[in-house]
Structure formats: structure tokens, C-alpha cells
């Protein structure tokens, strides 16, 4: 096998070859034909719906919505420009980054969709596996290939899993959708235990990957923390073992009740030990040689990923220190919005898509184009979308940060709030979503304005605030330190507050509802009182979640429901 030199490969993601491209072109042609037959009436809506969903096209509240896959959240500048072009030409000039590292366009026309998919295919992109009861887009650490604490680049195995799952005949009609997340650092940044399968990769003594395997986690109607099935799954058995899990799920998972169809319900019903026994029985009975993930295959996939050609560190670090000293606002941004890089002289930058009063995760086409330009200039043409709805430039030289921050700030992308209360995760809610009970965005806007002061946010410290417009939990409200859930009170919107959720691996927990639903404004006030209670009751060094765990929900509940 021969490989192109690294320099010609896209940095950070898998380079398509002609086989991949031909496949995508065929899928676009197939869908074009299906759309024509739908428009002519040859296909009814009932016949067409599953076909359009397989191509990421939903019918939402106001129009069709197209969900485009961004495998493991990584894209190159050209792909970002394609997304900008779609937003500008076929939508209303913006897109929405989601908690599954994808992007959604809200105003798509059915008749334009084949052309949009063709445009995507030209950029090696598609909308497959973004809907339906298949293995969905595999998510990965947004600092993959960059983080100082990383031991294995999870994108390689994410790509292997993508190839294994795409069109796997057995797994296109699972009982329900299936979500996999993978991390290659001991610090879980992917919420591994809130996925159908969560993988934590590390290295064994010979330098080969081994995986901790979690199964049966999820949010939604029945939030459950995933349980550990394996501690030390060798790399060569990764596909075989996951195949075994999926076979057990496919065979025993419930298909009679959509609310009981996820693997988490099966794991709970059988018990972990019995579930593990069945997986092991399947695993030992399999033709393991056939599923063996050979080191050579891993190496071949890895070779299709471009790697950055880093410059020597030089005086980059010293220069950054001086610039931080000279400009306090910049210093605060560096503290919140950068992450330690393994390469001396470099950092990863998280660009906040959450300005005060803004719509979490919404980015205009102009901003997308700017981000693409910045990626070309400063980060080897590569970008990542985070599951917290922000954008990451993975590899920025430290002495380029100041200019980057200034440019971002001039374009509404310089907010220094990553990890703070205004870095809100929110689903589209009732403003767009046909399943919603309540709007998620306006309450997010009110909260981010209420807590806009940088000083106040720094005083409050790290805090995750997540909002979902209904029990499907697309905004991961149960995983937020503070969660907000939209409910329907006889046709009126109302909100419940949950407290104490967390998605970090060691301390993962599900937020608990503290009481009856309130109106939007009452909820905003209640959260302000909850924050006041924390500030008054915390001990030195305690973060919000710590105080919440130490005191339990009672004092916060009292504050939330205190008469105004």
C-alpha cells in the first residue's frame, strides 16, 4: 500500500479516496431520484419519510431541516466554506452547531436538497447516519490530536468505527438509534457514560491501544449512567466486541415500544452481569479472525490523516506571557478559552459561539467563512465542532493568540466564557423543533444576558448550564450542573429546573428535578437565587457542583421557590 506524503492530506481528518467519493455520488443520485418521485406523487409521504431521514432531512416546525454530519467533529476550512455557502444560498444565512458535533440548517427546501447534498459530496461531506435507527456519527474529544493529556488520538478509532458502521447491513435497522463516543485522554471530555457505548482509550505496556468500554448510558426520557463492561479491551478485539454488543442489542432490544428501545433499557432489564454474559457468549462464538483489527489496518487508517507540521516553539511562550500582562481582557480570554497542547509553543483555542444574548451554537455564514480563514492562517486549515456547541482551532501558536483574539472579538466570537454559566448548551426548542414543549433559546438568551458580566462569571466559576425544550434531552439538561427542561402546561410553556448533573467521568451524575415548573421569567429569577445561595454558602475553593453535592438540593430548592 502506498500513501501520499503527509503534507497533501487534510490535517486532522481522514482523506477520502475515489471509492468513498463514488459512493457518495451514487447516494446523491439515488436521493435525487427519490425526491423526484416524491414530488411527482409516485412516492407517498409515508414511503418517502424514511428515505429522507436516511439523508438527514427532517420536516420541522417551519420547514425542512437538514442535519449534516461532521464525523468526530473535525472539518477542514474548505468544508466549513461549503457549509457557509449552503447557509447563504439555501438557508437564511446561518447554521446551528449541535451537541452531537453536527450542524443543522433550519430553512431547507426539499427541491434544493439533492443539489445541497451534491455540494456536500464535492467537499467529501454528507448527511448519512444523522438520523434513523442506525449507528450515528461517532463523537470524539474536541482536543483530539492536540491535548497535552492525550495518550491516544481517538479520531483514528472513531474513523475505524465510522467505516465499520456505515451501511453495516445488520445495523441499519437497529431497535433504535445508537450513539458512540470515544476519548483518548484520561480526562473524559466526551460524556462517555452518557452514550450507548462510551470508549476510553489508553495505552498498554507495549504501546497498543486498550479500551475501557461503557455501555447503556443515555439521557432522554430515562436518563441512565453507563456501566463498565470491560476495563482492558485490546485494540485487536475492538470491532469484534462492539459487534457482539450490537448483536445482543439487535436480538434482545425491544422493538415494540419506542420509549423502551434504547440499549440502556436492555442493560437495565437484564442487569449488567447478564448483559455482559450474553455479550461474552456472542463474542467467543464469533469468527474472531474475521473481525480482528490488525495493527496494519490501524496504521493504514492513521496514514490517511494529515498531521500538522509544527514550527519550533521559539519565543512563542514568552511573547504570550508579555501580551497577557499587557492586556487583562486578553488574559482572561486565554484563561477560559485555551487548552494545553502537547506541542511546545502551541495551544488549542475554543471559540465561544455563546455571546451574551446570542443563540447558543448559531453561526452566520460570514462567521463560518471567517473561521475557515482563521483555520487556514493559524491552525493548519483544520476546525472542530464541540459537543458544547463551540468551535475549536486545535493548533495555534502561542504568539499568534493575541491577533486571533482581536479578530474574533471584532466579529462577535471573542466571548471569554468557556466553561462558565453563559456558555449555555441549548437545543433548538419550540422555535424550530416539532417535538418541543417549550422554547429553549429565549431563556438561554435571558440567562446569558443576566450573567453577562465577566467579573460575575469569574466569581461564580465553572458551571455547566444545559437547556432542553422537551424530555428528549437534546440539550443534555440532566448532565448540566443546572439543567432546564421545557414542559407543556396546557399549551403554555413552562420550565423545570434540575440540579447536580455532571458528565465528567469520575463524578458522573444525573441532575434531579427540584420542583414544580415555572414560567420563563420565574425560572430565570429562580436560577439567579440559586446562584446567590451558592455564592453565600460555598466554602473556599468549592465550585458550584461541589457545593451542590455537599449541601444537597434542599437549600437551592428553598431559594428557587422563595416568594419574590
Amino acid at each position, binding site marked *: 500500500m502506498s500513501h501520499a506524503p503527509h503534507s497533501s492530506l487534510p490535517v486532522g481528518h481522514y482523506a477520502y479516496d475515489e471509492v468513498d467519493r463514488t459512493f457518495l455520488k451514487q447516494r446523491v443520485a439515488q436521493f435525487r431520484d427519490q425526491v423526484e418521485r416524491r*414530488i411527482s406523487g409516485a412516492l407517498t409521504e409515508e414511503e418517502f419519510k424514511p428515505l429522507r431521514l436516511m439523508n438527514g432531512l427532517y420536516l420541522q416546525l417551519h420547514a425542512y431541516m437538514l442535519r449534516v454530519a461532521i464525523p468526530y467533529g473535525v472539518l477542514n476550512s474548505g468544508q466549513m466554506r461549503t457549509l457557509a455557502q449552503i447557509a447563504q*444560498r439555501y438557508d437564511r444565512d446561518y447554521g446551528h452547531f449541535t451537541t452531537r458535533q453536527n450542524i443543522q440548517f433550519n430553512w431547507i427546501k*426539499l427541491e434544493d436538497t439533492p443539489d445541497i447534498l451534491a455540494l456536500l459530496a464535492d467537499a467529501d461531506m454528507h448527511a448519512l447516519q444523522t438520523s434513523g435507527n442506525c449507528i450515528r456519527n461517532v463523537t470524539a474529544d474536541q482536543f483530539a490530536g492536540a491535548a497535552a493529556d492525550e495518550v491516544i488520538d481517538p479520531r483514528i478509532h472513531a474513523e475505524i468505527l465510522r467505516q465499520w458502521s456505515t451501511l453495516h447491513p445488520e445495523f441499519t435497522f437497529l431497535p433504535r438509534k445508537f450513539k458512540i463516543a470515544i476519548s483518548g485522554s484520561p480526562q473524559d471530555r466526551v460524556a462517555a457514560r452518557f452514550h450507548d457505548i462510551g470508549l476510553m482509550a489508553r495505552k498498554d505496556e507495549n504501546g497498543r491501544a486498550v479500551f475501557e468500554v461503557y455501555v447503556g448510558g443515555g439521557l432522554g426520557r430515562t436518563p441512565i449512567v453507563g456501566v463498565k463492561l470491560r476495563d482492558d479491551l485490546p485494540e485487536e478485539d475492538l470491532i469484534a466486541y462492539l459487534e457482539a454488543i450490537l448483536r445482543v442489542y439487535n436480538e434482545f432490544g425491544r422493538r415494540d415500544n419506542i420509549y423502551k428501545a434504547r440499549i440502556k433499557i436492555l442493560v437495565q432489564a437484564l442487569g449488567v452481569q447478564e448483559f455482559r454474559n450474553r455479550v461474552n457468549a456472542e463474542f467467543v462464538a464469533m469468527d474472531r479472525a474475521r473481525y480482528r483489527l490488525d495493527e496494519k489496518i490501524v496504521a493504514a487508517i492513521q496514514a490517511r490523516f494529515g498531521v500538522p507540521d509544527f514550527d519550533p516553539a521559539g519565543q512563542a511562550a514568552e511573547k504570550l506571557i508579555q501580551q497577557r500582562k499587557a492586556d487583562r481582557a486578553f488574559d482572561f480570554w486565554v484563561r477560559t478559552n485555551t487548552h494545553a497542547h502537547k506541542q511546545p509553543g502551541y495551544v488549542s483555542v475554543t471559540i465561544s459561539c455563546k455571546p451574551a444574548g446570542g443563540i447558543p451554537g448559531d453561526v452566520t455564514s460570514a462567521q463560518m467563512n471567517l473561521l475557515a480563514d482563521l483555520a487556514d492562517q493559524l491552525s493548519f486549515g483544520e476546525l472542530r465542532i464541540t459537543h458544547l456547541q463551540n468551535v475549536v482551532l486545535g493548533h495555534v501558536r502561542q504568539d499568534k493568540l493575541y491577533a486571533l483574539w482581536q479578530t474574533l472579538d471584532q466579529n462577535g466570537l471573542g466571548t471569554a466564557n468557556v466553561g462558565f454559566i453563559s456558555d449555555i448548551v441549548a437545543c433548538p426548542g419550540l422555535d424550530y423543533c416539532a417535538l418541543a414543549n417549550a422554547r429553549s433559546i429565549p431563556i438561554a438568551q435571558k440567562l446569558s444576558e443576566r450573567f453577562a458580566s465577566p467579573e460575575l462569571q469569574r466569581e461564580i466559576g465553572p458551571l455547566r448550564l444545559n437547556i432542553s425544550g422537551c424530555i428528549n434531552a437534546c440539550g443534555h439538561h440532566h448532565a448540566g450542573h443546572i439543567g432546564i427542561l421545557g414542559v407543556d402546561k396546557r399549551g403554555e410553556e413552562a420550565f423545570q429546573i434540575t440540579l447536580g448533573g455532571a458528565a465528567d467521568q469520575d463524578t458522573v451524575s444525573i441532575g434531579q428535578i427540584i420542583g414544580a415548573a415555572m414560567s420563563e421569567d420565574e425560572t430565570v429569577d429562580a436560577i439567579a437565587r440559586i446562584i446567590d445561595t451558592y455564592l453565600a454558602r460555598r466554602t473556599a475553593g468549592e465550585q458550584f457542583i461541589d457545593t451542590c453535592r455537599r449541601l444537597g438540593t434542599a437549600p437551592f430548592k428553598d431559594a428557587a421557590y422563595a416568594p419574590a
Partner: protein
Amino acid sequence: MDRRNNRRDAEGSSVITANRLLDGRIVWLAADGQWSPHIRNARVYSNVEIEDALKEQTASAQDNELVGVYGVQVSLSPTGPVPVTSRECIRAGGPSVHPDFTPEWQERPAVSPA
């Protein structure tokens, strides 16, 4: 369509809505039998007579290039029918977070002539 939206009181009144097949946009059945993007033009039915009208419109949905025909309960105001649920108000008026994206929002041609 979601059953929630078809909840109607016996003595109330309703209008009929759908999405256009080609572009997905929301439309309302008007008094003149045309489908209008504006709820203010919508024909108001008593909840007693609406079931038959819904059956008829569902049957002709494909011919009219529509999907998801259903009835929406409204109250009457001087400016026309107003849905009783927040959800249908948002459908009628556009997303509350983009005041400019009303049903009047004019689109540019998808492919601008050179």
C-alpha cells in the same frame, strides 16, 4: 402529526394548516380555498364542522403539494385567528428569536441569475 396539535374543544373553532411539500413552509387554508402563508387569511371552522373539512383536505394533500394537514384551535381577535397554543403561535408567526423571519420574509431566488 403530533396528536397534541389536534386537541380541540367541542365548542371552539379552528383553522386548517399544513406544510408545503416542495419547500416545507407553513400554510393555512384560506376562505377562497387557496393555501396562504398568513394565518390572518385562514378560514375559521367550528370544531363541529372541521373534521369533514380535514378529511377532504387530507385526501387532496398530494394534489395540492402539501404534507401534514391538521387542524389548529384558535381564538378570534380583531386581526384574525390566533392559535391557542404557544407552539402554533410560533408556527404562525415564525421563530420568536428571529423577528425578521416572519411569513413575509422574502427569499432571494435560490440560484441568482448571472
